[in-house]
Structure formats: C-alpha cells, structure tokens
C-alpha cells in the first residue's frame, strides 16, 4: 500500500459520485480527477491507491492515465500555461505567444521554469476557436490573447 490517500472530503466525494454509476469501473476518470485536484498530479502511489479502490491492477490505471493527456504524470509547478496550437489559434497568432513564453520564462513546450512556478504546454484544440488565440491558465480559459495580455497574466502570477 502506498502513501497516497484522499482527503476526508475527497473520500466523501468519491462515494457520492460512485453512486451515480451502474459499475465502479466508471469511477476511473472521476477518481483520477480527484487525485489531480488534490495533489496537482497523479503519482504512481496515487495510481496504486485508485487501483485498490476500483478493484483494478495498477497497470490498468497506468495505461488509462497515460491515454488521457490532461493527467499530469509528474509535478508541473504552480501555474500551468496551456497554449492552443491548432489551426484557428495558429492563424490568429499562437506562434508569437509561444515565442513570448520562451523569451520571458525560458521554457518551451513540456518544460517547467527553474523556480518550479510555471509549466508550459502546447495543446491541441481547446474549443475556443472563436476567441483565438487562447491560453488556459490552471484550467481557466483566456481568449483573444495577445502578447500584452499574456505579459500581464504572467506578471500577476509572479
């Protein structure tokens, strides 16, 4: 048994959500979301914990978690900047935003800043094409993004 445990509140939340489904297997996504919201990432220990709760083997949880791009399989820092790179965002200026992040924070896609504060991801379409280009900061969408706006957002996070 690993060290990971849900908080008391998350244990209750797990039990509440589990009642909504005909089988416990359906808790795979909700269980991993609870882990990530609690810890910021999904550790091997947490996968063992989830496997135990759902009657799965750890490898089943691992193969599931690695399929879905939103689960962080390592710690990613305080602020996660996700830049949409898909077509409408590309046409509307995403490459300039990527360059700006590299120039100001020194990080490219998949990298975390040295102080551990910022993590940068280039992501595929986020369904914000009408507000392109967009970034998400810790899941919150910021649309019609510009270098000036992004600069302000990053400054506020520092």
């Amino acid at each position, binding site marked *: 048994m690993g060290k990971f445990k849900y908080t008391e509140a998350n244990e209750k939340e797990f039990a509440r959500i589990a009642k909504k489904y005909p089988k416990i297997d359906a808790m795979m*996504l909700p269980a991993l979301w609870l882990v990530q919201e609690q810890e910021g990432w999904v550790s091997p220990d947490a996968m063992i914990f989830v496997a135990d709760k759902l009657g799965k083997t750890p490898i089943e949880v691992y193969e599931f978690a690695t399929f879905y791009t*939103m689960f962080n399989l390592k710690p990613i820092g305080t602020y996660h900047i996700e830049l949409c790179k898909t077509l409408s965002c590309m046409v509307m200026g995403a490459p300039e935003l990527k360059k700006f992040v590299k120039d100001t924070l020194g990080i490219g896609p998949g990298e975390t800043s040295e102080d551990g504060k910022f993590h940068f991801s280039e992501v595929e379409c986020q369904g914000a*094409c009408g507000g392109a280009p967009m970034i998400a900061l810790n899941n919150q969408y910021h649309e019609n993004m510009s270098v000036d706006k992004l600069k302000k957002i990053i400054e506020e996070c520092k």
Partner: protein
Amino acid sequence: MAVELVKIVSKNFDIPDSHKLEVALKHGRYESIDKAFSMQPDEITEEVCKSGLRGKGGGGAACGPKWKLMPPVDERPRYLIVNGDESEPGTFKDRQIFQYDPHLLIEGIICSSYAIGAHDAYIYIRGEYKWFIDRLNEAIEEAYTHGIIGEKVMNKYDYRIDITVHRGGGAYICGEKSALIESIEGKRGHPRLKPHGKECEWFYGMPATVNNVETISSVPNIVLNGFESYTKWGTEKAPGTMLFAMSGPVKNPGVYELQYGEKMLDVINDIGGGMKDGLKLKAVIPGGASCPILTAEEVEKAYLDYESMWDIGSTLGTGGMMIIPEGTSMVEVAKNLIEFYHHESCGQCTPCREGTGWIDKTIKKILEGNGSDEDINTILDVCVTMNGKTICVFAPAVKDIIQSIVEKYRHEFVEYFKS
C-alpha cells in the same frame, strides 16, 4: 437577401443570467415538459422523426430513427448519453449551451429520456471545459433542488430522471460515440467495431442512445411547438437550424444559429462581418477540421446544408467554419492539422496510428526544403491506404482534409522544393 439569424436553441443566449433557473423559467424553460408527459413516448419519437432533426455532432444522421433503434422497454436499465466532448478543431458551439442555457439541455434530456425510456443520463464533456462543467453542474443541482429532476419530473410526473456530468480527460477520439462509452466505462477511448446492421449503442451491455448536446437541446422546441415549427426552417432534406461557428480572421467570429441552406459567403460577410484588416479569403474548412477544404472560388458556390456540401465535394460536419486568409501557407495548414491528428489518433488501428505519423513526418520533410514530388505522392498514397481500413472514421477524416489540401494546393508544396 440578407442572412437571418434564427432563435430556437439560442433563444435565451443573450438574456442576462439565463443560466440561472429563476431566469430560465421566466423565459420558457421546461414549458415542453407538460406537453411531453401528455404524450406517449413513441409519439415524441414520431414527432422528432417528422421534424427531420439531424445530429449536430458532425455526422448529421437523423435523430428520431436513431431513437427507434432502442429495443422495446424491458426490465433492463437503458441510458441516454449526451455527447459534449466537442473536440473537433473549429467547433465551439455546445459550450454556448453549457454557458448560456444549461437548463435547455436539461429540458431536452427530460423529453428525450422519456421518449426512449431512459432514467439515467450521462453528459460526457471534454475535460478542458472545466468552467462549463461547473456551470452545467450548478444548473443540474438547481434542477434537483427544485424537483425538476430526481425521483419525479417537475415534482409531479412519476418518472425518475438522474443526470450526471462525466468529465473527460483530454482525448479527441472520445467524441466518437463508442469511444466515449468506452471512456465512461473506465477504459481507454478506443472506438468499438461496428455491427453490420443498425442497432443502438450499448453501455455496460445495456441499451443506450448517444446524441450530441445541440441535438438534445433542439428537442424541447419540437415537442412544445410541433414538428412543423422546425420544418419551416432549413431545406427539405435538412430541416431546421444549426449553431454555426466561425473562427479565423473575420470581424465577428462566434456562434450563430442559422437555418440550413444559407449561402456560405453571405454568412461570412453578413454575419461574420467579412475579413478583417483588409485580408482576403483564401480558403475555408467548412465544418470542423475533418471536412475537405474549400478554395475561395468554391466558397462562392457553397451552401450550408449537408446535401449541398456533398455536391461540392465537402461535408457540413459540425458547422464550424475555419477561415483561412491569403498569405497563409497551406503546407503549414496541412502540417498543423496532421500534427493534431497524429497526436490524437487513439493508436488502436495500425493504418491510422502509422499513417498519421508518416504523413506528419513527410510534410515536415517538405517544409524543411527536403521534399520531392515523390513525397507528395507518398502523402496521397498513405491517405488512400488509411481510408476505410480502420474501426472508426478518424482515418477517413484525416484522408479527407489532407488529400483535399494537397490536391487543391499542390503547387504550394512544390514551392518548398525550390526553396
């Protein structure tokens, strides 16, 4: 004639706080429920059949006949699954419903669940839409608190309906209905092999129907006002309306409800405000990234309905028009899209998993100035090899968009050889 906005699904979008139950009730939400429960479930299905309502998630299949694929009601549980995965590039319409009128979706779920005999509905929403998921969950909570759903409907109809939002984890393929079900069932989102004959979907081995968010949200109007209220819009084969999304460098990008059959160029100019900053239109991907690209000349002949789109060699898809301006390299466009598809292929079928990677590498080689005619032919060959040889339509979608770009803009690929 100027393009007219139609307000059926989007009727309440502009009303302040329309997402709150109190406001929603004042503006007509849940008015269809009394009518629905005065009808037999089959009568609702017939009404939806007569309305010609078609799936808004990209496929355009008729909704009513799909409901009829459910087996007769027996002791088994049966499910309604609402597809809100919305991951097709260029598509951002369902989020308007989550944001501005979540009670319309709940109302649609009640009508639709009653029609197909389901008591449990799951709304699968892409994980990135956290804010929209929270908004919808608040509305569902309000609906429970006020007895609109739960053990009874509207506190009076003896019909249990429970609604659960299931948050995805970031995988485009989970918008494919069988992959979506696999995902809820706690597995990787791998599409299922399709049966030879038409039949319903199966959720944990029980009968299920999967419909898009906008499709379900179109049902209350049909139930309340009758199918004629819907068929007065659109074309004979594509009655009604659709939430069309427009992105790229137009003056007014956004989501607009229009009847089917409007002229695409008029929509871009009248509703989208035309190109911004003096840019010229070069091409449009008409209904999300999977639809064959249209050149500016083809756009002039394009009408926004399924049949017209097929006639000019493309598809309507989700109605998400991606506008591409002059000055954009179509090789870069192809590269951008194949990176998306390469990244999002679920990997289950070899032609798709390997084909997307192969095309990705070949276009990169061309962009680096190391390409040749043989590479262009290789891309086209791989497209043909992928098409029709996989479990789901992901690979055919890749073939459609990439082949169309390469064939219509081959000269731009050749330009890179010279550089």
